[in-house]
């Protein structure tokens, strides 16, 4: 309501003070295998946070918990103050998600995919079409609205997925390794697009990746390794703590630290 583009037609609680995402003491196990162990962090609204970790670090598990695909076994997750377990509806409606696997319906058109998503959020067809047209124009795919998703390139599909995730005007956008399998240009485009969302629209972004070159100096950084959080803070701070000049070196040092049991460098 303060002149941002994200004033919501449905009206959202004025939770200015609550963090965009708060993860508190979250642990998760698949049987005996511990995927997450006592992870806690909070990220501020309108920030760009990178969740850095190798494959198997627990990033996808964390995403499944944040999006309520799995229920939280221990701990709590709150999105702008809404507890995902207790008020899933309120939490999920201000959350936009881009999953790592492609989740578009290949046989439907781009527009049909978008209006379907809108319907799942209770947004009527006319409004959905309008928002979808806006979103597609912004990602430069306005002319592909009626093409089947199958005919798009990988990078285009990703951009459509991002447009779709923003259709219900979420305040927090989480992306799980969104650049996997994309070429260099498509990767750069998507990174730039998401960064622009943070800068111009005040969307809060949580970006999971295992690629250090996707991290900018101005980002906040969370390092996740073998289910444990090893560092959290602005990139400069993490570098200072570890005394390393680059994120890559800092990551290597953190993950090689003896306190992470059986930590093996990649």
């Amino acid at each position, binding site marked *: *309501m303060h002149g941002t583009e994200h004033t919501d037609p*449905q*009206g*959202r*609680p*004025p939770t200015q003070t609550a963090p965009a995402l708060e993860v508190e003491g979250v642990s998760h*196990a*698949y*049987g*005996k*295998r511990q*995927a997450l162990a006592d992870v806690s962090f909070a990220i501020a609204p309108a920030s760009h946070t990178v969740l850095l970790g190798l494959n198997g670090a627990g990033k996808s*598990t964390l995403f499944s918990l944040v*999006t*309520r*695909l*799995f*229920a939280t*076994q221990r701990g709590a997750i709150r999105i702008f103050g809404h507890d995902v377990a207790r*008020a*899933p*509806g*309120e*939490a*999920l*409606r201000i*959350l936009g*998600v881009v*999953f790592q*696997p*492609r*989740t*578009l*319906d*290949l*046989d*439907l058109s781009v527009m*049909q995919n978008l*209006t*379907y*998503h*809108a*319907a*799942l*959020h*209770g*947004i*009527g*067809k006319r409004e959905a079409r309008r928002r979808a047209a806006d979103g597609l124009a912004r990602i430069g795919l306005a002319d592909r609205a009626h093409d089947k998703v199958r005919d798009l390139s990988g990078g285009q599909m990703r951009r459509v997925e991002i447009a779709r995730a923003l259709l219900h005007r979420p305040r927090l956008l989480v992306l799980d390794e969104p650049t996997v399998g994309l070429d260099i240009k498509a990767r750069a485009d998507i990174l730039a697009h998401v960064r622009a969302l943070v800068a111009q629209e005040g969307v809060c972004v949580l970006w999971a990746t295992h690629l250090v070159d996707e991290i900018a100096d101005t980002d906040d950084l969370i390092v996740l390794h073998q289910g444990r959080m090893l560092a959290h803070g602005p990139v400069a701070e993490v570098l200072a703590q570890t005394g390393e000049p680059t994120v890559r070196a800092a990551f290597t040092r953190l993950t090689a630290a003896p306190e992470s049991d059986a930590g093996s460098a990649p």
Partner: protein
Amino acid sequence: MTIQLAQRPGFSLAQYAICLKGIVWREALRFLHQRERFVSALVRPLVWLFIFAAGFRQVLGISIIPPYDTYILYEVYITPGLIAMIQLFNGMLLSLSMVYDREMGNMRTLLVSPLPRWYLISSKLVAGTAVSFFQVYAFLAIAWFWEIEPPPIGYLTVIPALVLSGLMMGALGMLVSSLIKQLENFAGVMNFVIFPMFFASSALYPLWRVQEASPLLYDICQANPFTHATELIRFALYAKMNWVALAVVCGFLAAFMVGAILAYDPSRGFIARRGGPGGET
């Protein structure tokens, strides 16, 4: 109860309706895109009707049993069972589509909707049942030329029966889909769900005949929800009511439904255990 702030927690009825409409619409679109699915859904019962029934006509005599008022052809007898079969296949295909959705990640799109999970699952079920209506009426239209002519009113009175049995098969399919880990296991569903349900029922032969042959099989048929779905449709198609069948179908529908909703519940469901066996909750 609700405080008149700028916020309005929860969703309006209109939003629920939009969501349901969206899910049904997508299922219909998928159905239209897969024309082979429609054709095969139609050919399957027609093969039974044109070939199997024609061959069996002489072998199996049917006496006058309710709801029929007169001697009937074997083709007429098996038509309700074939309608139920259409719905059974459709229910299992719904389950297939959910497994496929899950493998392709589309299921996540559905499950991260902020609307309640039970509502999403129910909407998906309604969508699947709606699709089966096209198939059933197309089949009945062709069957009419094959001298299977229930009273005209029957085409209307059968609708509630179709809704109930369609929902029941769909809910069963959904329950099954939560148990299947991968797409390939669907062949197992054919063997272990579809065939036993279809053959151990009153679809192909009246139960009194089964009883003569094997009392055990008779009991199995009686316990089979497919039998009761078939009978409900059979009676409804002749504008009659079979209360027992109605009660059994409603009972199984409720049970399957609860099972499917629990199965897709994030804290209890099988999905939560997908990551590994014996998850804590």
